[in-house]
């Protein structure tokens, strides 16, 4: 009998060890698979329980909202509406084309006595529909940047402002160019010396110059799937109370009252 040559011997040993490794690998493969499936199942189970909790609390809120709308809950009967001087509404751009909902919301706000409303959506769809909205909702005048903020509150009719991303980050860039021109004209005084060249009030003035200088809202209501302000102008949101109202299609008068009531109970220290 011929003796086994080293390469043949090596090949035989390799085959034997592979015969042993293959089932082991298959076992690990299946353990891994089962573990992943169990993990995913656990994750989905947890989220299903959470969705159920939200469904239940949604029912409770809907009932509460109905009772508030009917005036059956004493707590919400008298609102100190004067505490809200400026109100902002943030609407998801997908819902911004639902002008009938927007107009109904404005009618509720006008009935409550809100004097200034800023309507915001990121893409500016509300701005594009502003003529339709102003035509169908005749209780308002369009906000002009030339208005002084204290004059807004003396208007008999509601002042309506349409805001978009153009008035947020892009407006800050335009205002920066206004300040840059002033800086160049002044000869670049204070450059690179670590001094403060501009003040916050100069920035506010520059924003007004570029047409994005509206007042700072006291309360911001978000109509969308999540509590995200979607890019509302940063310069105007320093101490604004932000509340999430749910999707625009599910808006109710009762939840609006509840949000306003909640705002009127807040006390701010402004950092002190």
């Amino acid at each position: 009998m011929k003796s086994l040559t080293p390469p043949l011997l090596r090949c035989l040993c390799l085959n034997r060890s592979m015969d042993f490794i293959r089932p082991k690998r298959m076992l690990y493969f299946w353990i891994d698979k089962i573990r992943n499936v169990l993990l995913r199942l656990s994750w989905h189970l947890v989220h299903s329980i959470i969705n159920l909790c939200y469904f239940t609390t949604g029912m409770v809120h809907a009932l509460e909202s109905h009772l508030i709308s009917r005036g059956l809950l004493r707590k919400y009967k008298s609102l100190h509406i004067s505490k809200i001087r400026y109100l902002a509404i943030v609407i998801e751009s997908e819902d911004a084309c639902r002008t009938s909902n927007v107009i109904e919301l404005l009618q509720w706000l006008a009935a409550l006595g809100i004097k200034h409303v800023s309507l915001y959506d990121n893409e500016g769809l509300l701005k594009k529909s502003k003529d339709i909205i102003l035509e169908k909702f005749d209780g308002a005048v369009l906000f002009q940047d030339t208005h002084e903020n204290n004059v807004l509150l003396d208007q008999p009719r509601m002042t309506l402002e349409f805001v978009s991303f153009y008035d947020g980050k892009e407006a800050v860039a335009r205002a920066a160019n206004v300040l840059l021109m002033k800086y160049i004209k002044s000869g670049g005084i204070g450059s690179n010396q670590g001094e403060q060249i501009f003040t916050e009030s100069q920035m506010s003035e520059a924003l007004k110059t570029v047409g994005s200088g509206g007042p700072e809202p006291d309360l911001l209501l978000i109509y969308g799937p999540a509590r995200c302000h979607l890019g509302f102008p940063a310069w105007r949101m320093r101490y604004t109370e932000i509340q999430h109202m749910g999707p625009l299609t599910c808006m109710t008068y009762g939840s609006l009252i509840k949000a306003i009531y909640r705002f009127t109970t807040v006390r701010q220290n402004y950092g002190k």
Partner: protein
Amino acid sequence: MERVTGRLIQMYDSIVNFLRKCIFYVLSVGPIPNHIAFIMDGNRRYTKRWNLMQGAGHKVGYSALMSMLKYCYELGVRYVTIYAFSIDNFKRTPEEVQSLMDLMLDKIEELLKDESIVNRYGIRVYFSGNLKLLNEPVRLAAERAMLATAKNSKAVLSICVAYTSTNEILHAVQESCEEKWDEITLLNSSGGYEPDENVNLIELTDIENHMYMAFAPDPDIIIRTSGETRLSNFLLWQSANSYLYSPSVLWPEIGFRQFLWVILNFQRIRVYLDKKRKQL
């Protein structure tokens, strides 16, 4: 007896850590936030509620902060930002401001120790804000901490001190103007250059590059404790798509339960938004 108690506590800690890791393992099936920001509100209310000495609430708040950082980095959150001290907080009484500065100095020194959380998780520390407004010892300690952790790359901790968003935006605009001024001066020296008023020299990207927080992506979640629903001049520029969460607990009382809840809510919303985006 003490040895037995010590052993039991160790065992309890190990079990709790193991359970927490299991929960994070399940959570990692869904989207994990990359950046979480905290507004640590409620320390003084906590002091009042429990009739503690002045400043005790902030000390308990610091332990709560260490726990939250541990949970964040264990889960795999890469960036954490905390609102430690606002420019508006300088309006407080000088004694309170000084005690907060002393606490900050003390805690920065602690962060730099070998066994601190910073070294355990490979965290790079940034101090974001107008540091010139701080007193010299705190400013120097902050600069030392940033230098000492510059080589760490696993995670980032951004501590906002002497910070407000409006100050950050103004500072970014100012830096952009100075940069353009330098460019114009250079162009002028090599040949007459008149800047056209109708051309926007400063772009949005110039401003974004000069923000204090330019090193980090926008936060996925901003948590403000004590049930307050405002941002108080914190990350206003960066928070356009951030999920804002306001649990009613005071900051020193925040724990794993609230952390877990916010992550689950974030995953729920992110999954919903991703589904909608795919439909469009």
